[in-house]
Every structure is written in structure tokens, then in C-alpha cells.
């Protein structure tokens, strides 16, 4: 495995080994000394051509805990915002000797362009590209689900997950559909018909337009962020109506199974897709997702840059 561009590049065993490696690395993070020397002398560039504080910080923390040198390259003030081409940026990073590039970009497929061109030969890690995928988010979500509901199994067979909201524009949803179904979970997409892509019929999921009929039947409710710019583009009449039908409020929280959990990739629109009392409730694992993100991203960097997973019990 050289790049992580899409979950569709992973086999089930590769996905499981990332989660297992993350479990091992999480033990390190819980210890007194949080650092491993594994990537000492390696250079990782965070190329963020689109704003994303949390994902960038998460990757930065992960790289630093593995002792890598981290260069942050963000859109504001960078050459990308001055109209430098992706190609020239890649050639520059290559010249600087980047071993891996973590890229966030507003264009779907930009990481694939970097990886498949001859512009640079480091590893490329997709940290979210347009409305395509966000594989590290899906891996941390799967990690979180497995930790809570996995009962010691390596995969997610039999676990039922509802992904609720703007599937059409969501890279988180696309990666999660691929990964969760790869790991054996049953996924239901819940959204207004306007926010599901044409072609979704071919996905290995169940489709529902009715959150109330789904919410009591699943183990995980994963809420998606509704972007502000969708409000004016006729996807739904207004924010209140969206919230009424597709928001996770305290009434709907009561319909959920006793063991079930609430997830959100952040940042949340409190009061729109998720009520504050739900986000802060005991069922919410949203803050934990952030913590798990660091371990999972450590695992991704570890495997891509060392070429092997971390075996249980080793140091």
C-alpha cells in the first residue's frame, strides 16, 4: 500500500489491519511518553488547499507522535491560493523531499491526480477531496464503532448504521459507505431525495427518506453536516423544515436502541442537524471520534511509510 486515496483501494484485511494498528498505537497515546521514534527523519507535508483545522491538527499530531518532521502548507498565504498549479506545488514538494503528502483539496480527485502523475513519488494520503472521499474519517469512524459495538470482533459484521443528511455532497458518507459495508455492516442512508446522488441505487445500501422509521432499528446514527451553501440551492425549503425531518433532536434520541451511539464528523451545526442536548448526551461519541482520529491517522502513516502494520504487543 503506497497511497490512501479511496477506501475502494483497501481490501478487508488491509482495513482491519489499519484498525488493529490504531488500537496498538492508541496504547502509546495513553502512556506517559506519547511519542514513538518510528518516523524519525521522515518528512510529512500537510497540503491543505481548503480550510480544515481539525483534520490538519489531527494529522499533525499523528505525525509528531511518530517523530516525523511536519510541514504545514495551507491555502491561505500558500502558492496554491496565488494560482500556482497543483503540478508546480507537487514538483516543489518533491524537490523538498516529502516522504508523504497529506492533501485536503476542494476538487474531487485532486489526490488521485497527485498520486498518478509523475510529478512526485511520495505517498499521497487523501484528507478529504471535494465531494469524493475522506478515507481517514471513515477509518476513525469504523474504529470508534468497533470499539463500542464490536464485541471483540475484527470487523463490523451485523452492525446496523444509519448515515443521515447531505449524502450528495458528503465525502464522509462516500468513504463510510465503502468501508462500513466492506467490514460487514449494514448501512442505511437517510436523506431527502434531493440530497442523494443519481446513481445511488447501485450502492450496497438501503435508502430511506424517513428518519423516524429507521432510527429505532440501528446501532449507530451518524449525522452529516449540512453546509450553509446548500440552503440557497433548493435542496430543501428552509433550515427549519430540514431540521424537523432530518435533525437528531431529543425526541428522536428517545427512539434509539439502548446500546446505540450517535456520531458526527464535525464541525456540527448545533440546532440544525443535531440538537445540543443530543450532541452532549451520553450516547454521543463525537468527542471520542476526535481522539480516535489521531490514533487512526498514526496507523495510516505508520503503515504507508514503514510498509507494514504494527503487530500486537510489539513496541
Amino acid at each position, binding site marked *: 500500500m503506497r497511497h490512501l486515496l479511496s477506501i475502494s483501494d483497501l481490501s478487508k484485511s488491509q482495513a482491519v489491519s489499519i484498525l488493529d494498528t490504531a488500537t496498538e498505537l492508541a496504547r502509546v497515546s495513553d502512556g506517559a511518553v506519547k511519542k514513538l521514534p518510528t518516523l524519525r527523519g521522515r518528512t510529512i507535508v500537510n497540503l491543505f488547499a481548503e480550510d480544515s483545522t481539525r483534520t490538519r491538527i489531527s494529522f499533525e499530531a499523528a505525525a509528531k507522535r511518530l517523530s516525523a518532521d511536519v510541514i504545514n502548507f495551507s491555502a491561505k498565504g500558500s502558492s496554491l491560493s496565488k494560482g500556482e*498549479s*497543483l*503540478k508546480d506545488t507537487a514538483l516543489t514538494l518533491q524537490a523538498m523531499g516529502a516522504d508523504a503528502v497529506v492533501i485536503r*483539496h476542494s*476538487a*474531487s*480527485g*485532486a489526490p*488521485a*491526480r497527485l498520486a*498518478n*502523475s509523475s510529478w512526485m513519488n511520495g505517498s499521497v494520503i487523501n484528507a478529504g*477531496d*471535494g*465531494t*469524493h*472521499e475522506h478515507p481517514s474519517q471513515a477509518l476513525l469512524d469504523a474504529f470508534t464503532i468497533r470499539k463500542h459495538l464490536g464485541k471483540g470482533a475484527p470487523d463490523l459484521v451485523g452492525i446496523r448504521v444509519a448515515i443521515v443528511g447531505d449524502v450528495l455532497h458528503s*465525502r464522509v458518507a*462516500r468513504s463510510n459507505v465503502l468501508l462500513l459495508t466492506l467490514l460487514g455492516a449494514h448501512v442505511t442512508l437517510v436523506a431527502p431525495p434531493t440530497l442523494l*446522488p*443519481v*446513481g*445511488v441505487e*447501485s*450502492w450496497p445500501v438501503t435508502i430511506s427518506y424517513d428518519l423516524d422509521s429507521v432510527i429505532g432499528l440501528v446501532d449507530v446514527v451518524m449525522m452529516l453536516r449540512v453546509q450553509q451553501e446548500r440552503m440557497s440551492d433548493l435542496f430543501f425549503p428552509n433550515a427549519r423544515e430540514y431540521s424537523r425531518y432530518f435533525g437528531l433532536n431529543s425526541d428522536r434520541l428517545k427512539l434509539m436502541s439502548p446500546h446505540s451511539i450517535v456520531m458526527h464528523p464535525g464541525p456540527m451545526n448545533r440546532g440544525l442537524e443535531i440538537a445540543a442536548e443530543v450532541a452532549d448526551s451520553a450516547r454521543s461519541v463525537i468527542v471520542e471520534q476526535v481522539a480516535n482520529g489521531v490514533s487512526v491517522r498514526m496507523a495510516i502513516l505508520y503503515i504507508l511509510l514503514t510498509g507494514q502494520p504494527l503487530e500486537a504487543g510489539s513496541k
Partner: protein
Amino acid sequence: MNSQRYLLKNASLPDGTVSDVLIADGVIASISSAISDPDATLIDVKGSVVLPGLVDLHTHLRQPGREDAETVLSGSRSGAKGGFTALSAMANTSPVADNAGVVEQVFRLGQEAGLLDVFPIGAVTQGLAGVALSEIGAMADSIARVRVFSDDGNCVFDPMVMRRALEYIKKFDGVIAQHAQEPRLTVGSQMNEGEVSAVLGLKGWPAIAEEAIIARDVLLVDHVKSRLHICHVTTAGGVEIIRWAKARGINVTAEVTPHHLLLTDELARSYDPIFKVNPPLRSEKDVMALREALADGTIDIVATDHAPHTMESKECEWQEASFGMLGLETALSIVQKTMVDTKLMNWAQVAERLSTAPARIGGYSQQGRNLAIGSSANLAIINPNSSWIVDRDLVASKSRNTPFHGYELPGVVTHTFFNGVATLMDGALVQVSEGR
């Protein structure tokens, strides 16, 4: 007139007969078996098919404005290499060909290049903006004698503007070539809307956006009794509407590009914008419907939509890249691969779809003539039993954006004659004049 004489020995004509063909004084001087002419350059074309010179109704030559991507001369060379003896230069240049000055400039550049006929297409509306009619009459009366009008790249979306344009061109038997794309349904669209776009997260260009405009315009043209041509049809649904319209006797013609006869939206999975084109590559089902429609005549012609772009317009993110691909040098091979080798069409039908019919639609009277004694010697010769590997570094176009790089294609265009002058000999371009 050119005094060079050529004797083509053992030529397979489009109807399947084998004969010798003598070219002299710019015309076909003789067609019969066993001609001998000691003054003529002898070319044995045994096994090759001699077609009337190909006529493209949809070419982007980029001049004036984007001479870094293509010029009239480089596009003419690319055309000659592909077997073309006439091109139709689309109006979306900079400045736009919406007045007599620009179309006359392009026409003159074509004559200076001297490799084939360059027929300028005039813009329907000023600046391609879709609001006010361009000086259609002045362009028709100019030395370029423009008969085809198109805002290609932009759809003439306003139904009243389209109606007026269709009516106005009746004065001189013109034709409106419509780029059928409902703009509101395709804001920011990147590729065919379907299973592949759903997975890739690229904004979809739905088939309905093409079909809705075709449906509207065949009804409009029927109402005002004018002449409509639909550019680059890509969808099975669009084909159905045109078939229906023709059955009703509506005066509509249609074109398909070579790339839409072969490639599908699956190629977008690479995110390589070399496959980004407007209208977009569609599904396998659409490709098959287009082939069937071209074979049965529902689609009248093949037109290349040759769209040269500089490297930097394609070496970038998909959504930043320009739409379009090269087409002139691979067109005939793609047609052989998709239509002839599949037994959907014979060479006589190829001659009709790539030469006779486009010349008729464009009103190019000296082009697209059947091979007959006295006709202008505009000819393309293809060896259908040979194959070649497309190499983007070897194209005659100034740009390299062919989607077929590395493809092995059947059919090698060996010779092109323009008014009796060889512009391509044994696969090599002939320097005809000092163009600029």
C-alpha cells in the same frame, strides 16, 4: 489549377468496386480499369479504400485568440493527416466570429494554409451570450459565405432567440447548429450524471439536459419551417427524439463525435481530465444507441468536435481542466473500429456520413462529391488492413490532448488530395504553401 497528375492503381471505391483513378488538373479525370498515363505519379493503393475527402462540420481551430493551442494552419495540417479536405471552424474564438470581419479573417487564413477548405461557422448571438443576434446576414454575404451558425460551447437557450435565429437564416438556406445543453440543469457540471459520477463526487451533467433542448428545438424548427442541426448527440434519449422528429418529417440533422462512439464515463474514474469533454462521455448503453443511430441514418454525420487545448489546461485537477479532446487525426480510424469492423456500416455509408452528408448540411458544393469524372479531386485514402498506435507526441495538431494516446487503431490514412493536390502522401504531410 494544379497540373500534377496522379494515377491511383487498384483503388477500392466506396461501393466495393476496384478501379484505377486518374487525377489531373484538380479533378478526377478518369475512373476505369487499367488506366495508363506515363506523365502521372503512380500510386498503387491495392487493398486501400478511396473515399471522397472527409468534411468536418465541427472543428475548433482556436484562431484568432488561442494560437498557442491551434492555428488555422496547424488545424489544417491535422485535418489533412486525418483525411479531411474541409473543416468548419467553430465561432468561439477570441474575438468571437460574430461579424463579417472575423469570419473573413478565418476564411482567408484557411486559403493561405491551402491544405483544405476552411468554412467559418458564424456565431448565432453576439459574443455567444445568447441575447442578441449577431450580424448573420453580413456573415452570409461575406466572402466566407457563412451558412452554418452556432454558439457551440453555449446553448442558444432562450427559446425566443432560437426561434428568431431559425427564422432569420431561412433567407439564405442557413442552418442553426445547436449545442443542446439546458444551462440551469448543468451548472458546474463535470461529467455524465450516473453511477460513476455518484461514486467520484463529480457534479453530474444529466442526459435530460441535452434531450430537453433537442425536444424543444425540433418542435420550434417544425413550427417555423427552417433547418436545425444538432451538434454532438450523446444520449440514447436524444437519439429517440431525433428519430421521432425525422419520422414526422421535421427538417433536423444530427452529428455524433468519434469519441462518443467509443469511450464511456468509466474513464473518468482515473480523474485524468484528458477524458473531460462537453458534452460528456456517457454510458455503454448510450454508445450502443449512437452507433445504431449512425448506422440507420437517424444520426446523419460524424463530426469531430476537434478541441485542442494547451498542456496546462489538462495537467490539473479535473474540475479546473478545460473541456475537449482532439479528433481530426483519429476520426476515420475510430469510425472504422466502431462502425465498419463491427459490420454496422460499409464504406459507402462511411463516405456518406463523413463526407457527402456533412457537405450537404453545410452547403459546401465542391465537397462531398461522389467519385465521378469531372468532380473536384478531393479524396482520402485509407488502408483498412493496417493499424497504428496513437502517439500524442506525433500529432500534427499544435495540442496533444488526444484521449486515444497508446490505443492501437485500425485503418491508416495514407493519402489526402485537396483539389487534386496531394496534402498527405504515404502518411506524411506535404508542404503545399508557405502558410503562417
